[in-house]
């Protein structure tokens, strides 16, 4: 028995899956002031009459951190930065309470300027004096050598042991100092609230006799165990669109190159599957306008949905952005996009007579035929969606490439189907697919695809390893893990791959996802010979291995 719950901004969806059967679905308004309450209400409704001891997995996709970061009611947090030479400091002056400290590392992980303890102490004293309790420390190139960040942390711990500290190298070890400091900053800022929340969830589940594994959905479409998520609150942002995309993957039969559209009441979220894999945003998730190191799906959100209200003015039909209520066919007062499609194609959604009535009244106001009005609405909707889809294709096709091979072979997105999910997709997506001359798939249970996606998403884990045999070390982008290697030129790619795989396995074990470690695949294999003079003095390897987003082993599809 599996449970998936996706908390959205307006509604929270839940689904209970037993084998291939959707045993229950629940949709409740979200109480943004009490997410735990909302989740438990949905859970209780799903479990009504069920035996809680049979639940084997609960997956939650929540908006807690997203809301927290959006509403701005956040605890004061300090940033200690060691930027070294390069861009001007103002580029990194993104947040209040930022302190710049001496100390620098270069791209080979060499310390080129030491930490000055007195300056760290002075900054720590100021932080404490300001009553700030949370500190993020980030150094440029700390992903190649985390030593300076750790030194700074140790000094702070000694002087002000009560300060809560997060290191950039632990939380965001990929290249890009700016994204690292942003990620570390928001992580330490949200960590305590998130930890309290997951504690409450764990308690509430236990008190209902649910002793199942509890996982949290991440922005990358994978899950992590509740207890692991405590250290990585920011990875839970934007899990909603990820839930929908994974739901589409679960419901559509073997999608390859597909466009997934989740059309809800007032928004449409578009994502892409390329060769069966969801496309990631090339620059990571954006929080408060800043890029981060959080892997997230590339999602284009349009303020356009089934409940978007229609109006007329100057003989033109307009589609409003603000929801006024339900579609007329469901008893709403004003005609919406859904009503126009309902009328145009005789879709039998809700009460079609009410759709007809509402659009006719509006058409009379505009002095046009109801059919003409509906066609114009269709054109507007299709044009907007089509434009957004082609823009996404182009953006993907025009992503920079750094190898001759990639540029020569180019990229072309040849897609063959649109998968529509979300409550309003059945009305709109078939017409869109016809217009783009591709197949249309509206799977069963499309309305709760998001909750289902959360329910059956498998864990994900990505590890990048950087090995420098000239300087005799390796580092990963996870938790500052690293070690030594033999210097010289002997190491071959095979050994580098093994090192990466070993790291992934160990991390997977730590994070209780070892069942999927064998399915990890390499997505990056770079090797450079370091030539000094005219001979090879070492090698640099960059290897990436990941448990990619996918579906849990137990999932066998759903049947009506």
């Amino acid at each position, binding site marked *: 028995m599996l449970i998936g719950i996706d908390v959205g901004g307006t509604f929270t969806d839940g689904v209970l899956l037993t084998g291939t059967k959707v045993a229950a679905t629940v949709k409740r308004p979200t109480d943004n002031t009490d997410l735990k309450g909302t989740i438990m209400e949905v859970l209780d409704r799903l479990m009504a009459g069920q035996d809680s001891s049979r639940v084997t997995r609960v997956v939650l996709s929540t908006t807690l951190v997203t809301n927290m970061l959006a509403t701005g009611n956040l605890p004061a947090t300090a940033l200690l930065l060691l930027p070294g030479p390069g861009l001007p400091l*103002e580029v990194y002056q993104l947040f209040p309470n930022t302190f710049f400290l001496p100390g620098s590392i270069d791209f080979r992980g060499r310390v080129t300027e030491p930490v000055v303890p007195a300056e760290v102490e002075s900054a720590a004293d100021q932080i404490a004096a300001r009553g700030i309790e949370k500190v993020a420390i980030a150094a440029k190139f700390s992903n190649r050598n985390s030593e300076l960040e750790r030194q700074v942390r140790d000094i702070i711990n000694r002087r002000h042991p009560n300060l809560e500290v997060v290191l950039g190298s632990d939380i965001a070890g990929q290249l890009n100092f700016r994204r690292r400091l942003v990620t570390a900053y928001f992580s330490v800022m949200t960590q305590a609230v998130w930890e309290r929340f997951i504690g409450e969830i764990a308690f509430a589940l236990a008190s209902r006799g649910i002793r199942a594994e509890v996982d949290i959905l991440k922005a990358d479409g994978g899950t992590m165990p509740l207890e692991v998520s405590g250290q990585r609150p920011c990875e839970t942002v934007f899990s909603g669109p990820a839930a929908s995309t994974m739901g589409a993957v679960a419901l559509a039969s073997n999608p390859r190159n597909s466009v997934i559209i989740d059309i809800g009441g007032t928004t449409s979220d578009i994502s892409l599957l390329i060769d069966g894999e969801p496309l990631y945003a090339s620059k990571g998730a954006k929080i408060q306008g800043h890029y981060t190191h959080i892997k997230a799906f590339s999602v284009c959100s349009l303020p356009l949905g089934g409940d978007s209200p229609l109006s007329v003015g100057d003989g033109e039909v307009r589609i409003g952005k603000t929801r006024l209520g339900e579609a007329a066919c469901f008893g709403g007062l004003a005609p919406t996009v859904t009503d126009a499609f309902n009328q145009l194609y005789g879709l039998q959604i809700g009460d079609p007579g009410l759709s007809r009535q509402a659009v006719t009244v509006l058409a009379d106001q505009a002095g046009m035929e109801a059919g003409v009005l509906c066609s114009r609405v269709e054109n507007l909707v299709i044009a907007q969606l089509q434009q957004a889809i082609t823009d996404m294709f182009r953006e993907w096709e025009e992503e920079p490439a750094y190898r001759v091979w990639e540029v020569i072979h180019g990229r072309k997105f040849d897609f063959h189907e649109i998968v529509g999910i979300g409550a309003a997709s059945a009305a709109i997506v078939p017409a869109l697919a016809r217009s783009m001359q591709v197949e249309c798939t509206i799977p069963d249970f499309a309305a709760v695809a998001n909750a289902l996606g959360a329910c059956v998403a498998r864990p994900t884990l990505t590890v990048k390893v950087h090995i420098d045999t000239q300087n005799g070390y390796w580092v990963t982008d996870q938790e500052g893990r690293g070690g030594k290697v033999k210097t010289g030129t002997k190491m071959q790619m095979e050994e580098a791959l093994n090192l990466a795989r070993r790291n992934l396995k160990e991390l997977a074990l730590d994070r209780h996802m070892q069942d999927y470690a064998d399915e990890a695949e390499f997505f990056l294999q770079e090797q450079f010979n370091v030539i000094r003079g005219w001979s090879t003095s070492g090698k640099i390897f960059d290897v990436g291995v990941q448990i990619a987003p996918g579906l849990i082993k137990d999932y066998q599809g759903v049947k009506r």
Partner: protein
Amino acid sequence: MKQTGLIFFPAFDWAISPTHPEREERLLYTRDQLFEEGVMDLPQIREYKSGLATHKDIARVHFCVPNVEAQITEAHLVSAGSALVIADAVMNQEIKNGFALVRPPGHHAMTVAHGNRGFCNINNEAIMVEYLRKQYGLRKIAIVDTDVHHGDGTQEIFWHDPDILFISFHQDGRTLYPGSGFTDELGGPQAYGTTINIPLPPNTNDAGIHYVLDHLVMPLLEEFEPELIVNSAGQDNHYSDPLANMAFSAQGYAVLNQKLAPDIAVLEGGYSVETALPYVNLGIIMAMAGIDYSNLREPDYSAARLAKKSVSQDYFDQIIKTQMANFRGREAKIQDYRRRFPDDYAYSQQIYYDTDGISEQQMVRLQMCGDCPGYRTIQSSARHSGWENYEVFCISVPMYSCPKCQEEGQRIYDEMIGKPGPFDYIYLQDRAHDVYRSMNTGRKVETVL
């Protein structure tokens, strides 16, 4: 705010040979630095994807022997193509300026291409310049070659072109490859004075180069009034470069680019892959994007050490005086040439391809047209590294040529391909009509691009 365009193309899967300076590793640490700084995320920067130049784009500049395919790899198409992408973006006003941070380089490649010279097969800047003219109708363009080596390829390509001001400053040719670029190399008889060389003594530092920039390069540009300025941006003037002996710093390069304010910069040489390139490239980007670069410095930078490396002020003052005079006297000198050579002007030259060990013999004949820069013919012979010997005849008709020269060029081509002769290939480069013909005389097969 208009952005600065950037194409970063490190060609991580291309090298001349595994241990050659022009190898995969060359821009690896530049990648690290730019990506770690988050340069691509800056609001001032717009990153573009590399493009591909067409064979026609290459034939607009080069006579590739025997054909374009034989002289290039795919990497060259990407490198040159990326410069074209930046050029388009500048011309379409998507960006205020742009930097093609690409390899392989090109500034030693000359009009006729038998092989690789100084790590170059085809000339990225020249291909871009002729493309800009053809696509956007530009005419007057200045190319400032800031590589430590003399840009002899670019110089040769525009030697007879009065609308291209080519300025190269470099380490004195008596002490460095390719051994040319002296002050008396001033351009052909119809384009005298628009080739300006500024040989600099070894150890010239930031102060020295900036002095020359302020008192010679910038005044020349001001008087020439180009529609566009291109920086042929080598980075081997850096104090740590292993192939040269200058004392320029990353800050120095940034200042240079701020002053020069090129519309387009294209990467050339620079082989201090760790100590210079990451910082110099960052400096150029920051200067072009108008970002404060005062926090930029190499880890081993020592202002005091570099300041000691000074060169006599007299040397700079003398060269400034000489070259300003040469430039300002160019019209008179061209009139003089026209009087002395009323019909045509012929000369022979020998060109050495160091990378491939090829020696080429050329006979050049320039039509001394009174209405245009004049078409020219080049007889060229060379034994390639595979030991094939090639005798070719090339006709080059400039973009802004008069109808008479255009007709003449076509007539010579028709005549040459109609009769037996010693040539394996006969080429017509008709830039005015943007048609590029090549006749394989042995197999009687004509290729038209």
